């Protein structure tokens, strides 16, 4: 398990293995230190390829920033999900109204999003690890995207799965609540399904007594992809071995 530190620092660990390694990192301070040091080395690898940007590149970057809202800091989360949502709404132009309008039952949807936001922020409070910072950042980028869109679907074995996706970010955040609690020999596994087949998208970490899925980011999406979940043996499978318990189609932009 320790030997994955190098691959992980180089973003060379596929989603199917990443969750297990990040779980390991959570309990291994020397490993975290090692990953941190190795990332500094990879930063030097990146810096060594520095190249002169073309004309107009700087103006484009500065202009884009001038027009973009910034994400609020990952500060202490107030207990009420409503307040969390309002604070997020202040910082993110067009995010709340757009999500509200896009879905039927505005109140129910806003509540659901607030739960997602509160769940994510609460999770982020407890850990200050490289991978959590990366994951929370990725989550925030999707939620904060101007084209963020939310979709939900019932899970056949119980519960509801929710996806917030952004075509602009080519990524989605997956959560689920009220799931059937699985025995320790089984785990929920996420899949990204597209024309090229089914790709493992990671094992789902459970919280809330085993009923709530911690937010997971799936990136590198293409249109026509679907995201789904199955029940697999605890260590996961390279391909689904049981029928999908939920499927969400990632509709085009």
């Amino acid at each position, binding site marked *: 398990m320790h*030997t*994955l*530190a*190098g*691959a992980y*620092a*180089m*973003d*060379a*660990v*596929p989603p199917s293995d990443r969750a297990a390694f990040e779980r390991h990192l959570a309990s291994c301070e020397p490993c975290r*230190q*090692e990953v*941190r*040091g*190795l*990332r*500094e*080395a*990879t*930063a030097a*690898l*990146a*810096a*060594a*390829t*520095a*190249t*002169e*940007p*073309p004309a107009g*590149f*700087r103006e484009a*970057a*500065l202009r*884009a*920033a001038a027009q*973009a809202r*910034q*994400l609020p*800091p*990952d500060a202490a989360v107030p207990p009420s999900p409503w307040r969390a949502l309002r604070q997020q709404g202040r910082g993110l132009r067009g995010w709340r109204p757009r999500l509200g309008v896009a879905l039927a039952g505005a109140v129910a949807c806003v509540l659901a999003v607030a739960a997602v936001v509160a769940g994510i922020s609460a999770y982020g409070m407890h850990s*200050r690890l*490289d991978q959590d*910072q*990366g994951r929370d*950042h990725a989550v*925030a*980028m999707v939620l*904060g995207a101007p084209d963020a869109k939310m979709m939900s679907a019932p899970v056949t074995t119980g519960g509801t799965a929710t996806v917030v996706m952004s075509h602009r970010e*080519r990524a989605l955040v997956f959560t689920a609540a009220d799931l059937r609690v699985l025995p320790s020999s089984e785990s929920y596994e996420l899949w990204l399904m*597209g*024309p*090229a*087949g089914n*790709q493992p998208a990671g094992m789902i970490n459970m919280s809330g007594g085993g009923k709530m899925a911690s937010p997971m980011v799936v*990136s*590198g*999406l*293409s249109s026509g992809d679907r995201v789904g979940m199955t029940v697999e043996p605890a260590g996961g499978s390279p391909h689904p071995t049981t029928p999908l318990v939920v499927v969400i189609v990632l509709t085009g932009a």
Partner: protein
Amino acid sequence: MPGGSADAGQGGQAGQANSRQRPDPLADLLVLVARGDAEAYAAVYERTAGQVLGIAASVVRDPAQSEEVAQEVLLDVWRSASRFDPELGSAAAWVMMLAHRRAVDRVRSEQKAAERAHRVASAEIAYDEVAEAVEARLDRERVRRCLGSLTELQRESVTLAYYGGYTYRQVAELLGVAVGTVKTRMRDGLIRLRDCLGVDG
């Protein structure tokens, strides 16, 4: 204009508790960027844009897509500056992590669409392609020298993973070696690189 803050090199100016031994001017700039300071962002651009574009181009290759990815990363830095935590590493490492991840995501989604049918016939071609693309760009003597201090097998794995954007499993397949061997080479290679460069953990 927030208080004459261009002198970010003093460290601790923004009053952050930074347990890193080294001063990190870029980190201080990010604190200002997080408050919406456009001048600070322009300074961050000066320090990072070339590197962001460089790593994007090394991984993504296609010039138009590389520029697109680089612009997305720079916007990412503006939007999420408040999320940077100096406890977890240097600001440069944070920015390059954002850049590398976006570049790799772009390449892997392209690969997925084509069923990775580009699967190169032999590892040598894959390695040569990547190494060639990178060689032309490696103008930092220290990195070049330190990469040279790796064994050929370590350098191969690190290059394919970092600059090629391949996962360790794909590298194992490309090289026709066991997954465990690749993991070890990647880790040992990066450790040697880290020690050679003398970068702080």
